[in-house]
């Protein structure tokens, strides 16, 4: 085994394989920085190039891209309050306030080093768990998936501070928006108003961009300011403080990464859930958690560590069973099949060399990607000091271009504008917006798995040990969070 691990490292370090991995890293960074694209777009871009390539450089390139998207997507989340991809939504909660206080460098540095560490932990966990994971993956059924989705929904209470009813209402709004389109349990279309665009529901990228980006842009334009003052901006050296933050909060990084691997391990839960769960758990379990949401660096460290570690966890069912955990791993799976690989238990025995190459690619890509992002952060952070009236038109063009790629129809643009207006009104009225996203991303899992559970097991699934365990954890975390919020001074 040790020989195999070393051999895989030497294979990756061959110049051609390293070059292709760095190429994948570059594509991943570009995709992460541009809002609305995401890992699925990046992998889809690389797939045509995989045809006819040898396995080793192709794997290095694909994994290199997938590993780095959730590192680079921090840039727009922190600097502009716009999610770079589905995995960086929770980072906005504290990263953007930090940028507004002139600590963009610190937030970015903390995010990149937390991402790197989380990605490394994910890679190591993948290596250690792969031989043991088969029974665990088989044990996760629809009742456990339903309960895990409820666990994610319970984070709404934490994110709503002292107004959980308001937060719950916004989560219900997200659940309602997700009801638009095809019902998962039967061939019926709901709330489409005979609009073809709505038959597939509202795309997540359009919702996220519209809800977060448009209100923020409008408020900055009206105020006539920049994200932060030029005098207050700390550029160039703040990343070292971010590194010190990560070292100080090493246990938070570790447990967030473990949580990320665990959530990524569950097929179908997706990257847009793990960062919210990690953020909520960190807010509930960290001392002084009332600072979360106001520029607490731990609110950046936790989701960034977990969303990179998630890739390691998601590769377990992908490699062992050919069951992708998300859209990104679904495309990655397609790439592996194109290369002649057969995901399954044989990946541990006959295909061990390739599996170990995947692990090393994941690890090294995280390191290279994080260092490259740190090198770029000082320059990119200056964007936060540009006046909104000069930055807004460029941002709007980029966001519209990104939103349009969801379904490539005018409906994306119309939905982007209407959802943006809705987000602005809700924000003006004091309603929190993150719960809308949480409700939206969890809705499909909730409805689908509830129906499957009821159809297959009746009511008996409610007494399953896994269901009870997750239910107790949900209640405990929610109660603890409510208790913490009540202790906050008014």
């Amino acid at each position, binding site marked *: 085994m040790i020989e195999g691990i070393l051999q895989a490292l030497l294979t990756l370090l061959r110049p051609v394989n390293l070059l292709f991995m760095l190429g994948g890293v570059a594509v991943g960074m570009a995709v992460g920085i541009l809002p609305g694209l995401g890992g699925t777009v990046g992998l889809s871009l690389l797939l045509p190039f995989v045809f006819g390539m040898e396995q080793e450089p192709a794997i290095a390139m694909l994994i290199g891209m997938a590993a780095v998207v959730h590192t680079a997507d921090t840039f727009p989340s922190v600097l502009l309050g716009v999610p770079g991809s589905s995995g960086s939504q929770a980072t906005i909660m504290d990263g953007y306030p930090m940028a507004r206080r002139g600590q963009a460098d610190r937030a970015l540095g903390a995010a990149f080093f937390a991402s790197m560490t989380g990605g490394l932990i994910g890679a190591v966990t993948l290596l250690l768990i792969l031989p043991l994971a088969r029974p665990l993956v088989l044990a996760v059924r629809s009742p456990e998936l339903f309960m895990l989705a409820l666990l994610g929904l319970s984070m709404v209470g934490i994110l709503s501070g002292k107004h959980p009813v308001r937060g719950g209402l916004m989560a219900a709004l997200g659940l309602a928006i997700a009801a638009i389109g095809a*019902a998962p349990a039967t061939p019926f279309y709901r709330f489409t108003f005979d609009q073809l665009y709505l038959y597939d529901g509202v795309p997540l990228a359009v919702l996220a961009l519209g809800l977060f980006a448009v209100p923020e842009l409008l408020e900055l334009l009206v105020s006539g300011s920049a994200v932060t003052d030029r005098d207050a901006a700390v550029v160039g050296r703040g990343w070292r403080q971010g590194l010190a933050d990560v070292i100080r909060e090493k246990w938070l990084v570790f447990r967030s990464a473990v949580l990320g691997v665990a959530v990524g391990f569950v097929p179908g839960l997706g990257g847009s859930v793990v960062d919210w769960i990690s953020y909520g758990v960190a807010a509930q379990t960290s001392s002084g958690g009332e600072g979360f949401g106001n520029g607490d660096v731990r609110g950046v460290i936790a989701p960034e560590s977990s969303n990179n570690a998630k890739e390691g966890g998601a590769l377990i069912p992908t490699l062992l069973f050919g069951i992708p955990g998300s859209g990104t791993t679904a495309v990655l799976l397609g790439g592996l099949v194109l290369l002649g690989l057969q995901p399954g238990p044989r990946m541990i025995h006959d295909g061990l060399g390739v599996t170990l190459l995947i692990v090393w690619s994941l690890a090294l890509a995280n390191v290279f990607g994080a260092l490259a992002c740190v090198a770029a952060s000082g320059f990119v952070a200056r964007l936060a000091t540009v006046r909104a009236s000069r930055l807004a038109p460029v941002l*709007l*063009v980029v966001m519209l271009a990104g939103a349009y790629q969801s379904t490539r129809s005018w409906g994306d643009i119309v939905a982007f504008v209407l959802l943006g207006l809705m987000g602005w009104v809700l924000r003006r*009225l004091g309603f929190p917006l993150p719960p809308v996203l949480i409700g939206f991303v969890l809705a499909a899992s909730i409805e689908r798995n509830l129906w499957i559970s009821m159809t297959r097991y009746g009511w008996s699934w409610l007494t399953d040990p896994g269901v009870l365990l997750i239910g107790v954890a949900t209640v405990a975390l929610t109660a603890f969070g409510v208790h913490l919020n009540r202790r906050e001074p008014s």
Partner: protein
Amino acid sequence: MSRSDPLIGLGVLLVLFGAMALSSLGFPTRARFYPLFVGVLGVLLASGEMWLVMRAAARSDADAKPARPVESGPPPVALARAFRDVVPYLLWLVGYLAAIALVGMMTASGLFVSAFLWREGDVSAVRAGLGAVAVVVLLLVVGSVFSLQWPGALFDPFAQLGVL
């Protein structure tokens, strides 16, 4: 914001969720349960929040303290007045979208960026033009590398020239 703003917003949400629940009653059984549950949940939460808002307003009247505070976000200004401040930028957005429909994404983006920078960004015409060129080049490069697609237009000069 004025006291009535949150109540109006909550009223709209109450109506929306109620309509959702009622309309779901006409769905097939398997498609009905989820929107019905969400609609009822939304009605209950909206009603609860309305009651909390009205109670806080009544208490603030009695105690001469500020009413139920907003969690975060912009300073409290009446929604109507805030909307008036935003209208000029919404008109810019509508104009940009109309331009996309007429002349395509590239041309419209160039025109929009240059006009906005010059008019709102207080930038010289030359710099505004350079900014527009940079944005169009960025779109062309990124679009080519990532095989992005652009909205259809009545007359797209870039498509006519075979650039797209």
